[in-house]
């Protein structure tokens, strides 16, 4: 029996992704596999709002998760900190608006479950080949969005938690994601805490490619943290052959 961890970041309005996650969970339990936790993060926290309703003609995805959780004893954990950013006070009514069967939790719970699970399934995200080496403990974070995109922040918080728990982790920035590595000269900088990684955790696992930097018109000297340049082949190798888990943000 293998242990699975599901990470749901799609909002409840994304029926396609929501159904895919549920079908996957149902299929796993039917095969006798263990779903150790379903973690609701990013916009996925909205699933835990007790005021949530679904339009007619569409399945009630929240109720389906609740039934599944009760029937197979699968913990539904919602990130309390992100929840509050989406108007969800993760406490039982009347104090908060947390739906039944959901538990307020945090990245600590997610990360410790991740360390002990065999496979992570992220929704939405392309599923990475199952060929991943089981001897490696490395968790690879892929950052592909602009700095003000919420997922940049959510991914960074998760990476910081991985480092706090002394998990073996690396961070790869590609496409528009390389802009996260630049300290903005004007406007908000929600990623300032990235500096903690080299300063406090002696983290050296920042990677990108010369091509991605060049496309953005950036040079290594402009980046806020020390970044190592790798070839696209090497990055592909790290992601597909040297990672136990891959998290895409």
């Amino acid at each position, binding site marked *: 029996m293998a242990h699975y961890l599901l990470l749901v970041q799609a909002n409840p309005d994304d029926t396609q992704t929501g159904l895919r996650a549920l079908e996957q969970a149902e299929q796993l339990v039917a095969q006798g596999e263990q779903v150790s936790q379903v973690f609701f993060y990013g916009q996925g926290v909205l699933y835990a709002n007790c005021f949530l309703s679904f339009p007619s003609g569409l399945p009630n995805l929240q109720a389906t998760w609740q039934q599944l959780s009760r029937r197979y004893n699968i913990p539904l954990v919602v990130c*309390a*900190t992100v929840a509050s950013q989406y108007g969800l006070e993760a406490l039982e009514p009347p104090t908060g608006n947390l739906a039944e069967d959901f538990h307020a939790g945090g*990245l600590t719970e997610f990360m410790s479950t991740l360390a002990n699970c065999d496979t992570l399934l992220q929704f939405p995200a392309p599923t990475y080949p199952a060929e991943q080496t089981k001897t490696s403990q490395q968790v690879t974070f892929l950052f592909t969005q602009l700095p003000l995109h919420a997922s940049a922040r959510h991914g960074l918080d998760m990476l*910081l938690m991985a480092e706090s728990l002394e998990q073996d982790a690396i961070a790869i920035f590609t496409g528009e994601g390389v802009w996260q590595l630049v300290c903005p000269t004007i406007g908000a900088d*929600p990623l300032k805490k990235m500096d*903690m990684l080299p300063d406090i955790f002696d983290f050296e696992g920042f990677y990108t490619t010369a091509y991605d930097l060049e496309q953005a018109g950036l040079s290594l000297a402009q980046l806020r943290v020390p970044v190592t340049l790798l070839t696209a082949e090497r990055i592909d190798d790290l992601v597909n052959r040297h990672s136990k888990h891959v998290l895409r943000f």
Partner: protein
Amino acid sequence: MFKLNDRVYETDKHEYLLNFSDWSEGLAEHIADLEGIEMSPAHWEVVFFVRQFYQEYDTSPAMRILVKAIAKRLGEEKGTSRYLYSLFPKGPAKQATRIAGLPKPAKCI
């Protein structure tokens, strides 16, 4: 809100100081009093440390990060939960950040 010497200081819903720049050592002593803590040089060292931390990283340090950061900057013997709990018995991250006039650290981190 905090009230000190006829002045009112706004707080957030967790009763943490709303404006970082409203802070003063006098206010810190007042909040410490509310927390049942008598400030010693060892307490001040941590309080000033978290203020500087906040200025550098724009975030209130939660416990694990606080321990790690203190070990790194103030020395291994101070960067332990045991030492920090001896100063702030109800939770070092929670109490030190409140006394330092920072927002409450995220639950989740």
